[in-house]
């Protein structure tokens, strides 16, 4: 099927939904494509309350935020949403985004402007037998457990003490699944103290300076061998020990899904602080291909609240390009820019800010 729209939004997570919400009550024809059967992206899998301010639904649980965000967008007649539809590629000569719905229907979607809000994928880790069944990405564990109500296993070891590792450990405990320990290669816990404290006071140990050497098992995971690391990140001989478990959950970071941006000839750069390859953009979230905007984790790994704010900024900037921006729109963007700045102002935002410096163009 071939169709044209004014604005194509790839991804209906927090960033994509907020971007789409800008076009509610306008005449702009918007198409949103989302690869999951549901809207809200990873928010839907989050049982915890979110940080931030009231405007970003702080204190609301992730799945509830996604309900709020999709509400306005679902009602709008000018916003057409295709779920279970994946962007397959951008074809510059043919002038459209190719998308595939449920593995059965191809859509060729022409557009004036596009917002890429594809989010992130999970990083993997190298260790012996890392491909045994029973070893999951943390996202997979969340999907199994919180979307489908299926326990990933009986006894879990978590690798990584960033926020995701901590949150998913807590979610496992909520689901009644035992978490044996969290291991962390660094000398300090990566995530927020408050998340770590929640699981520590549930008696879950966090072993820092510890890494996984190998997974053990024939058809599926039966245990792991872990080892302590010295200050140079080298294994300390004699500290190897075997822990039994049927599930290993890898929470070792996220990586922006920037394939489409590369296809659309947006200049990208590898920025470790932002999780991987991200597009160069200006403060309007516009890429070097001026028809392309980004928002959310694809622009650099951060929190859902920043994804939402970036979604508003990208949406309003396109509204401006299409010459339909209202004063209200501009206020929304101004506020979003201010909020973002404020959120990134503390010590936790330092890393993001130093990463952003490398990819933010100073000019429009």
């Amino acid at each position, binding site marked *: 099927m*071939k169709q044209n729209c004014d604005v194509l939004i790839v991804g209906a997570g927090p960033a994509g939904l907020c971007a789409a919400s800008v076009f509610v009550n306008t005449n702009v024809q918007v198409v949103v494509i989302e690869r999951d059967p549901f809207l809200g992206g990873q928010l839907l899998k989050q049982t915890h309350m979110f940080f931030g301010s009231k405007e970003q639904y702080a204190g609301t649980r992730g799945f509830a935020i996604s309900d709020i965000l999709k509400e306005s967008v679902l009602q709008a007649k000018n916003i057409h949403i295709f779920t279970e539809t*994946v*962007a*397959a*590629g*951008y*074809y510059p000569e*043919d002038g459209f985004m*190719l998308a*595939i719905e449920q*593995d*059965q*229907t*191809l859509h*060729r979607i022409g557009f004036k402007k596009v917002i890429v809000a594809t989010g992130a*994928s999970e*990083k*993997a*880790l*190298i*260790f*012996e*037998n*890392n*491909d045994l069944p029973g070893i999951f990405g943390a996202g997979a564990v969340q999907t199994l457990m919180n979307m489908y109500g299926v326990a990933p296993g009986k006894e879990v070891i978590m690798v990584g003490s960033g926020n995701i590792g901590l949150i998913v450990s807590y979610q496992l405990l909520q689901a009644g699944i035992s978490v044996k320990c969290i291991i962390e290669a660094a000398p300090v816990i990566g995530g927020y103290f408050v998340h770590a404290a929640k699981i520590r006071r549930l008696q879950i140990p966090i072993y820092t300076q510890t*890494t*996984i*050497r*190998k997974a053990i098992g024939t058809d599926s995971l039966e245990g792991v061998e872990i080892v302590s690391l010295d200050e140079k990140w080298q*294994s300390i001989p004699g500290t190897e020990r075997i822990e039994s478990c049927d599930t290993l959950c890898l929470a070792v970071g996220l*990586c922006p*899904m*920037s*394939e*489409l941006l*590369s*296809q659309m000839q947006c200049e*990208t*750069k*590898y*920025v*470790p602080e932002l999780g*991987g*390859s991200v597009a160069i953009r200006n403060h309007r979230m516009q890429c070097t291909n001026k028809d392309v905007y980004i928002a959310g984790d694809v622009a650099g790994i951060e929190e859902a609240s920043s994804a939402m704010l970036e979604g508003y900024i990208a949406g309003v900037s396109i509204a401006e390009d299409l010459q339909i921006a209202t004063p209200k729109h501009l206020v929304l963007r101004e506020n979003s820019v201010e909020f973002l700045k404020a959120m990134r102002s503390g010590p936790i935002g330092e890393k993001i800010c130093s990463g952003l410096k490398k990819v933010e163009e100073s000019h429009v």
Partner: protein
Amino acid sequence: MNLKDDNTIVCRCADVTLGEIKEAIRKGYTTLDEIKRLTRAGMGQCQGKTCRNLLLQIIANELHISPTDVELSRLRPPSVTIPLELLAKEDANEN
């Protein structure tokens, strides 16, 4: 990262091991593209979504450089697989 065990699988689509990748780097094939072409790592069904980052890390580790200095390769479509019969069915000129 434990980089000692050469039998560790890095690209799970094509079962490419750490040893094969280190061998390619040792022979002077130090870009993602060269390693991909010689070892098939990242050429499989997921198109590097799982191993791309690992490859970057391994290259950086082996060459003692920062991952930011590893040359990135161009990512070709499609980003997801498409059955050929679907493409054949679709009329490219229909409006």
